[in-house]
């Protein structure tokens, strides 16, 4: 029923050569997309600026954030408004607000990045194991995840800090322990679909081991998800840290942190609004930048598009 000319192979061989698709390089595509998206570009620029400021805080800050200036308080002992000497004014203890803001960025970024990194690690491990192994293991892991997830996150952190005591390390651990659940659930869902794909079946029929299948065929496909959730996680972690510090159980005093500055500033809001405005705006911009960057990454790393560009 099938009639083949003798020279079939050579003929169509050159034909199949021409069907090769050319693909744009992933980084070039990312760069081009960024240039056409001013919002995302600004977000990344701000994150970059924030990182530089945080890393080089001692070089950039005009003063020691803990120093109480004798000229930092007015005659009646009130905070000094922004002027040529103190660009963002001083706080109720006569400390320079700008310097505290810059050192506060350190705390925010450190807590945000480390907590998210830790949360991602836990989340990816638990989500991958649950999704890949399935069965009872999956049920136990996911019910545990649901349990942690069902706690109100802030209340949960407050309770944990109350037990562990406030310290920067504990803040990081507590946030990581509250946030991994989100990633675990998403990762499990993705693993469930990836493990049904034919290339995973092909690896299994070849006799490739489970660990190697997870490492080489499953984890690489999770990376876009991890990046997106990581970026959004940094924003969430920064907010939680600020909330904890606002409540006085975050980063211990006298270390500068945005949450603590807002907490103090609200007491003097009517007489010294800059105490509230400066850390408030910094916090809003930072969280916004990470969220917008996350949105842009979601679009860029969309699986359908991703397959083409990897």
């Amino acid at each position, binding site marked *: 029923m099938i009639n083949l000319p003798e020279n079939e192979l050579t003929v169509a061989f050159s034909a199949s050569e021409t069907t090769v698709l050319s693909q744009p390089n992933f980084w070039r595509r990312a760069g081009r997309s960024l240039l056409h998206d001013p919002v995302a570009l600004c977000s990344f620029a701000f994150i970059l600026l924030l990182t530089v400021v945080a890393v080089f805080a001692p070089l950039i800050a005009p003063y020691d954030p803990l120093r109480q200036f004798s000229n930092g308080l007015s005659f009646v002992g009130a905070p000094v408004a922004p002027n040529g000497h103190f660009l963002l004014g001083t706080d109720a203890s006569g400390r320079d607000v700008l310097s505290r803001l810059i050192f506060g960025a350190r705390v925010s970024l450190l807590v945000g990045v480390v907590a998210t990194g830790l949360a991602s690690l836990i989340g990816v491990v638990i989500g991958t194991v649950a999704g890949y192994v399935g069965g*009872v293991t999956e049920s136990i892991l996911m*019910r545990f995840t649901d349990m942690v997830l069902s706690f109100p996150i802030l209340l949960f952190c407050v309770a944990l800090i109350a037990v562990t005591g406030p310290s920067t390390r504990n803040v990081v651990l507590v946030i990581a322990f509250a946030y991994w659940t989100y990633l675990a659930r998403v990762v499990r869902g993705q693993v469930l679909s990836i493990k049904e794909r034919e290339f995973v079946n092909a690896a299994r029929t070849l006799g490739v081991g489970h660990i190697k299948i997870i490492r080489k065929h499953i984890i690489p496909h999770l990376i876009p998800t991890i990046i997106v959730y990581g970026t959004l996680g940094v924003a969430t972690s920064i907010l939680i840290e600020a909330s904890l510090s606002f409540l006085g159980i975050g980063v211990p005093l006298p270390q500068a942190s945005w949450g603590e500055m807002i907490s103090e500033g609200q007491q003097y809001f009517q007489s010294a609004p800059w105490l509230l405005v400066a850390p408030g705006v910094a916090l809003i911009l930072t969280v916004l930048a990470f969220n917008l960057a996350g949105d842009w990454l979601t679009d860029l790393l969309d699986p359908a598009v991703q397959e083409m560009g990897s």
Partner: protein
Amino acid sequence: MFGASRSIKAVDNVSFTLQPGETLGIAGESGSGKSSVARALVQLTRPTGGTVSLGGAPVTNLKGQRLKRFRRRMQMVYQDPYDSLDPRMSVSDAIGEALSVRGLPKTEHAAQVAQLLERVKLPATIAQRHPNQLSGGQRQRVSIARALAVNPEIIICDEAVAALDVSIRAQVLNLLKDIQHDTGVGYLFISHDLSTLRFMADHVAIMYVGRIVEYGTSEEVFSNPQHPYTRALIAAVPSVTRRGERRLKLSGEPPDPGNPPSGCPFHPRCPEAVETCRTERPELLTIGDAQKVACHVVQWGREKTPKTEVTA
């Protein structure tokens, strides 16, 4: 909380043998259990009963190292060339993975990959490409090379050419034949396309709702089909020479495998069904030389069958 899943008996009582260097074709409509047979053979799903033997030794329900060793002996080429290669792995990595399974040291991979690519008639330059830079036919050749990398005795081709367009399909089929001629590998060729099977297969099994309804050499089944279902399938193949001829047409849908009809599962659609077909399930019995058919009417002989209408 720990939900139970409903299981469907997708394949029932299917048995066949495949000789080395031979091709067995399995045909049937979608939902007939062709792919389930393939998945059970390579143990992606575990059959609830029955045995698979390879070289005389049973290979069902293997675990651990023994399962891994068995897997190398039976490989599979998948239907979808766009999903059977990891989009994040280059061609040389994909084939290299198979070579690692065989225990070949990394230093020898490049040479082996080049040799395998030549075997499937792809240029060696393709090794560094990713699947998205390849055409469907090229991807399928890479899949074949990957399967060959572990020197299997049997390769299961589950609709391996169904996604390719016709000119490429012919090339890949020819390639598979060449490989069989050179290496003596056995093929289990699963397809809904009868012309492909006629071209490839030495023996053919026709499946309907999880059972084999007709089995025989390719010659027997295609030139002298017995089962009404086989006849309908063959009549459905478009042909230039039989133009204008009245065709045997099948009405209705294949039944739900979870709830197959009583008796012969084909009886609601069968033009020749008699009363017995509704109640008694026909066995697969030998008629003629090697041909086997599961049909009451054929087994009794078409002339001798009482012509009673079925009230369905």
